[in-house]
């Protein structure tokens, strides 16, 4: 049936009322990344190269929760994670807890190709990144006013829930859709 590609920018409580100024840049980014992936497949790049290329582009786009647009922990820090896997060989690589790596997906691929391991995390992953000479940026590169605001809203939402003392259903977490229309799910 020939080549095929799919990509996503996250799922969650994305309200139908998402303002146009938030919807359009995301749809444009999806189209742009799709074109990059399709061109790479047509140029006979391997699926492994194609998925890394597309995810790098998505990581570099501040509108999605990865790389440049990563959300913040409850301490206001960034901890990114990524994973890549090749179907034929089942070779795979993963990283977690990286805070200064520009493209976590490329580091995950290096774990797969340059180490005997599958998964590196936190300090070890950061040290490996420095050793491999991947592009690293200051953690503040990822801590943007928009993400600080999102964290503040998420904290306020939690506090409001406690004030109302409404029982939060265990099986249907109260995914608060915050003012700016972004879901808080991964």
């Amino acid at each position, binding site marked *: *049936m020939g080549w095929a590609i799919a*990509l*996503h920018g996250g799922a969650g409580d994305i309200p139908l009322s998402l303002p146009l100024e938030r919807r359009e840049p995301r749809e444009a980014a999806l189209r742009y990344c799709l074109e990059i992936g399709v061109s790479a497949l047509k140029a006979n790049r391997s699926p492994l190269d194609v998925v890394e290329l597309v995810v790098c582009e998505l990581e570099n786009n501040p509108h999605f*929760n*990865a790389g440049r647009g990563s959300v913040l922990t409850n301490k206001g820090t960034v901890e990114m994670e990524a994973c890549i896997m090749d*179907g034929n060989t089942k070779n795979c690589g993963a990283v977690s807890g990286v805070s200064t790596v520009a493209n976590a997906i490329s580091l995950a691929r290096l774990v797969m190709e340059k180490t005997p391991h599958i998964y590196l995390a936190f300090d070890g992953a950061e040290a490996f990144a420095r050793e491999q000479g991947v592009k690293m940026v200051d953690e503040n590169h990822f801590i943007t006013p928009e993400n600080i605001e999102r964290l503040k809203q998420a904290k306020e939402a939690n506090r409001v829930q406690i004030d109302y003392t409404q029982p939060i259903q265990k099986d249907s977490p109260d995914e608060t859709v915050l003012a700016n229309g972004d879901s808080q799910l991964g």
Partner: protein
Amino acid sequence: TVGCVAVDSEGNLAAATSTGGLVNKMVGRIGDTPIIGSGTYANNLCAVSATGKGEAIIRATAARDVAALMEYKGLSLEEAAAYVVEKCVPKGNVGIIAVSATGEVTMPFNTTGMFRACATEDGSSEVGIW
């Protein structure tokens, strides 16, 4: 979370997922993305990338289950992914993109929306949110 799955005209498959995690997550929290078989999986039948509430996706080993349903129950990619989204992960918690070695594509989700796009060699393509 962002992800991409791809298959070339020889049926070679790959999957990749990357994320900042959950807003306000605890320091040190690991989600589904880097856990093989939960948020990301690829074998010689399909390639899968999941997004949503990591804890629910991990419990369901969502990505591996899609491949296992194809491998052991002979379901199509679309049937397998739909089953996992509808039956294995609580509503409101997951979106999946997947491609198969024969070039099928599927992008089911049980959340309000999922930012997604796909294209196939026969010329069809889609960009969607809801």
